């Protein structure tokens, strides 16, 4: 299977460099099992074209992921997810999510929302996702 660039969401005006956003999202797709060993990442050209970003940025992300052993270069075919990345346990994935939630909760508290109100917002966002 080849993943589509549509699986990726890039925020150019974020403080996090774009190549790191791509790396992080690949890691998450692998950690969640949405990408498994043998799956291919979108080609550099396809990814850069769809997301309107520089090809060098995509190449950089892929090269680093390759160095980390998450993907390997399959000549002529692209970047393939390796089989040496175990799917992370739910516990580990929760730890990873925690960082993001902490930021969100801080913001929510600054907005003066109660715990119930915060949970209501999270639930309504979750509803928008196909389960």
């Amino acid at each position, binding site marked *: 299977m080849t993943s589509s660039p549509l699986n990726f969401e890039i925020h150019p005006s974020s403080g996090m*460099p774009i190549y790191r956003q791509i790396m992080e999202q690949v890691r998450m797709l692998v950690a969640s099992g949405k990408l498994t060993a043998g799956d291919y990442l979108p080609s550099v050209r396809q990814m850069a074209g769809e997301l309107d*970003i520089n090809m060098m940025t995509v190449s950089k992300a892929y090269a680093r992921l390759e160095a980390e052993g998450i993907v390997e270069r399959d000549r002529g075919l692209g970047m393939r997810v390796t089989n040496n990345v175990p799917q992370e346990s739910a516990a580990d994935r929760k730890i990873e999510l925690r960082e993001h939630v902490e930021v969100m909760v801080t913001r929510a508290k600054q907005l003066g929302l109660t715990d119930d109100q915060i949970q209501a917002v999270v639930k309504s966002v979750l509803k928008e996702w196909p389960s």
Partner: protein
Amino acid sequence: MNECVIDAKNVHKRFGKTKVLNGVDLCVPRGAVVGLLGTNGSGKSTLIKCLLGLLSCDAGDVLTLGEDPWDFTAEAKERLGYGPQEAKLYPWMKSAQIVDYTAAFYPNWDDAWAKELMTRWDVETDKRAGTLSVGQLQKLSLVLALGHRPDLLVLDEPVASLDPKARREFLRSLVEITDDEQHTVLFSTHITSDIERIATHVAFLQDGVISFFGGLDELKEQVKRLRITAKKDLPPTFTVPGALRTEINGRTALVAIPTISDPLLDSLRQEWQADVTVEDLNLEEIFLELHDA
């Protein structure tokens, strides 16, 4: 990437008593897409003109495409594309005629490509230049700059008068041109989000010098804002070495620093028994932090 397509050393330029460039050093490596950032009046256009031989610099050395821009050969001009901030075109010529007229100067003009760009960007081909809107005029002048697929493309505020759709189309075309990592682009702008999408490098022009030049990713990874919350009130003299800007409010301080490092964080935590969180900054925020200092 080590070879400088543009190599400026210690460039000075003044107009009357006003010093605009005060020792600019800049090396633009081959294949780079460089965003040149600076406040209004910081001298971006002056610098660009000095790099292209449209202005003579008072002192310093410039080599562009390996030549002194004041005495560019025809070969160098063929490899160079320039999009000025304000295009000066014959007002009585129709867009398509202006393109043909310009094409005649270039043996390497790519007619199919120029036509494709005009379609893609919705350039009105049968209107006279004098009747075109500012945005239309800018798009036309970009076609003229890009039509011969120049090795080096220099654009002065290329997107200032373009609407968001045209801007995105233009950026997309720029990305295509730089696909092969052989074509080099230098463009000035004050719209930082455009730079963030496509630039590999950024250059800040500030007080007549390049105050920063480097990879955009590296810049974002190094420049950070620290939110420091100490056990007790911080003294008004509180400071972090190298800080770009410090804001103290009771126990809390916000400090922008040019280079993040673990030893720095550790020492702050120890010395002030403080909770230190690191905040990412986007290019606009970095620009403001650098210019507020």
